[in-house]
């Protein structure tokens, strides 16, 4: 009799497994998952951040679907979120979990991106992994931006107005972009409708296939070894199979991530401010979400130093150049033998981290 590939040693489980395996080819999937080895070294901690990002995305999907049951876009947006937060049993928890996990997901994606960058995991043959990852980060930020307006409270309204200044500062097409996004000259119920469609239909339709592509690439090429570990002789390098060993540890990290999320959602539940009032003055210190703060601050500073369109062109130009450099880094530093290029790329990475943190902190400091 042929030996079963069932991962559980139990008579009944094996019988069920064999039944499903014959029809679905589960053992092939298992072999594919077990083929990938995850290197074990002092920087292995950073391998978890992709999984943690994925976990928060799954929480987003689950809580997002639950919010969809009660949320009503358009003129009733605020009232429906008020009901979710204060009237519906556990609505506050679902909304808090959704909002906190959105922030935690963006944070985890940032950590994942910088760890990939500094471990040189964008080098050949992983360039498409890097580009698809950048695409996912961009979509995650648009997810965050579009979702922030949906409660239509005072803070969401004015933060969206402020946030829209970034695309609107694009020379020539800026005003057109602004009208297109808003659905009119001002942020209003049409904007909520557009953001809602973007948030629950268009973005998921783009995000999910791109995520699948990204995960397939990770499975295909495996985890990269950082340059420091490449110097270790191959015989001395340690690794563990992705399935089930690394997967077990991943589950443990997900449990920790769930704890952090539950702690934030229950101890610091997401509040709802007063309804948006377009004719009221903007509250003091209004600002976009933390992950847009560095861009916002840079635009503000350049606007002060170079008043008028010069500052705007300079700001948008810097973002564009920065984004292009960040995206093409795998083409510049494409081989582990590129000592000098590798070092320059590392400096760029640390410079980007320092710049983002400094500008964000500066932005909050001067609020």
């Amino acid at each position: 009799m042929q030996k079963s590939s069932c991962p559980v040693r139990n008579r009944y489980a094996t019988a069920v497994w064999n039944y499903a395996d014959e029809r679905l080819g589960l053992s092939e999937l298992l072999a594919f998952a077990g083929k990938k080895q995850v290197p074990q070294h002092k920087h292995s901690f950073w391998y978890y951040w992709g999984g943690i990002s994925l976990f928060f995305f799954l929480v987003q999907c689950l809580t997002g679907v639950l919010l969809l049951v009660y949320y009503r876009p358009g003129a009733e947006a605020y009232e429906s979120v008020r009901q979710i937060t204060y009237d519906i049993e556990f609505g506050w928890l679902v909304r808090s979990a959704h909002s906190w996990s959105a922030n935690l997901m963006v944070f985890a994606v940032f950590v994942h991106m910088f760890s990939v960058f500094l471990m040189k995991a964008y080098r050949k043959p992983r360039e498409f992994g890097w580009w698809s990852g950048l695409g996912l980060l961009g979509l995650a930020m648009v997810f965050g931006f579009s979702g922030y307006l949906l409660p239509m409270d005072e803070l969401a309204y004015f933060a969206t107005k402020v946030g829209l200044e970034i695309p609107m500062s694009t020379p020539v097409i800026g005003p057109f972009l602004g009208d297109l996004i808003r659905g009119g000259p001002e942020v209003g119920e049409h904007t909520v409708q557009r953001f809602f469609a973007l948030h629950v239909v268009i973005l998921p339709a783009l995000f999910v296939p791109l995520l699948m592509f990204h995960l397939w690439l990770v499975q295909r090429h495996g985890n990269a070894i950082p340059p420091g570990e490449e110097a270790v002789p191959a015989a001395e390098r340690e690794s563990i199979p992705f399935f089930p060993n690394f997967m077990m540890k991943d589950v443990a990290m997900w449990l920790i991530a769930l704890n952090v999320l539950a702690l934030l959602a229950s101890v610091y539940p997401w509040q709802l401010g007063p309804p948006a009032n377009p004719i009221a003055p903007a509250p003091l210190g209004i600002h976009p979400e933390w992950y847009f703060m560095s861009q916002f601050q840079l635009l503000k500073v350049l606007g002060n130093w170079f008043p008028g369109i010069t500052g705007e062109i300079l700001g948008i130009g810097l973002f564009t150049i920065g984004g292009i450099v960040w995206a093409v880094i795998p083409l510049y530093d494409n081989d582990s033998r590129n000592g000098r290029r590798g070092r320059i790329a590392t400096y760029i990475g640390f410079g980007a981290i320092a710049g983002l943190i400094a500008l964000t902190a500066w932005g909050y400091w001067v609020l």
Partner: protein
Amino acid sequence: MNYPVWDVPIIGSGWVIGMIAIFHVMISHFAIGGGIYLPFAEARALKRGRKDWLEFLPRHSKFFLILTGVYGAVSGVGIWFAIGLAAPEATSTLIHNFVFGWAIEWVFFLIELSTAAVYYYTWNRIPDKLHLKVGWLYAGTSIMTLVIINGILTFMLTPGESWLAVAGTGKESAHFFQAFFNPTYWPSLFLRTLVCLSLAAVWALVTGSLINGRKQPELKTEVIRFSTKWLLPAFFLMPPCFVWYLLMVPESQRALLELGISTIGAGTFTQVTRMVLVSIMTSATILGVVYFIAYRDPKTFRVGYACAVVFLALAATGSTEQAREMLRKPYVVVDHMYSNAVRKTPVNVNGEAIKEVDRFNRDGYLTNSIWATEQEKAAWAQWDRQREAAQVVNASTDEQPAAPNVTPEILRRGELMFRGQCMACHTTDGYRAMRGFLNERDLQSIKNILGMLHGYEETSPYRTYMPPLVGTEQEIEALAIYLDNMVNGTQAQTENVASAQ
């Protein structure tokens, strides 16, 4: 009330105690659990003739000695130093009742520290059996420190009817044992013992993770799996012990938790319930995380993973300690002393039992304050006469009293009321910020809230977690003016008045 007030901006004095205490609990409970773990593991290794274990255990005992002997001891003293500053009246009550208990604890503490050092420095220098006896002596004395301190800690939540009956009469020390073996003593002792065993596992995972899994796979697997099993007693026995503990908590305090549980769905549940939930969740997660990353794959268990487990244990400890502290609201010693250091039980003054709340309301909270000058007190008396006269005139004409004349002396009076009765729990801008709580309220609205706290009616919604606000009508009004100035005046005004004094 004449003790200095410890003004800790942003976090408040309570969090200074909290931050020291949470880390201290992590270490002090390890000092007991780890003290049992070491001789137990040593005896096991000797019995099995395991040289590799006997090479690992000295490394673990070195880590144990440094962590408990240095950080544990320093943070323990730090707690008492901090509570002496943050809650001097309550600390004084504890010292007056338990000085004998503390003296005994210090005897055991000295033996504990000495034997811990002897245990580490005599590895392979004295006969194995004698070394093991030193280990067990350490374990015994460390358990005794818990046996004693547990009585003092639980007293604050459940001082017991016997002690409360004599509180304020000067005969409290005659009821030492009743106060010591109070209603929550035994469930708390069991709970803390289980925590000790769990923390023995958590910290042993740290040193276990440092074993080279490639060179000593068998040892690493055994040490990690042996250590993880020390978590099991806690996870099986903690739930029934916790229920036992809750059943012994006074109904009035348990109501705070029950109120929170019944309002979870609406999201308005109390802070203490939130903390209990976090505590249960993080504790359960530790078992899951340890199973997945340590027990299932011990050879690749690295120090980073061990740190993640320590982090979870820290979250569990922090939330549990905070929940335990908040369960006492609005008291610092339940049914005896409120969190603003005002006693609920009558005080014996010249043979007469007087309630402090009534005395302060009649004679004034600041009448005998040493923090106000005679000139200030004279200005307050003059202001009081003006306010009383205005009220008499207005009572005859049915009009509202004229707005009070705000002078620096009155703001100072309000500030002293704030420092004496609010600052034990509240800050101006940080933790439990008054500016946040009173935001968008005007003077009348602040007066209404203070009136409710002062009246302390049975139906008052604040009664479950706020102490009574004591003082004369004019003192309460001065506090309202001070708070109004803090919230609605400019910050500079309030600070200028404070600094000018």
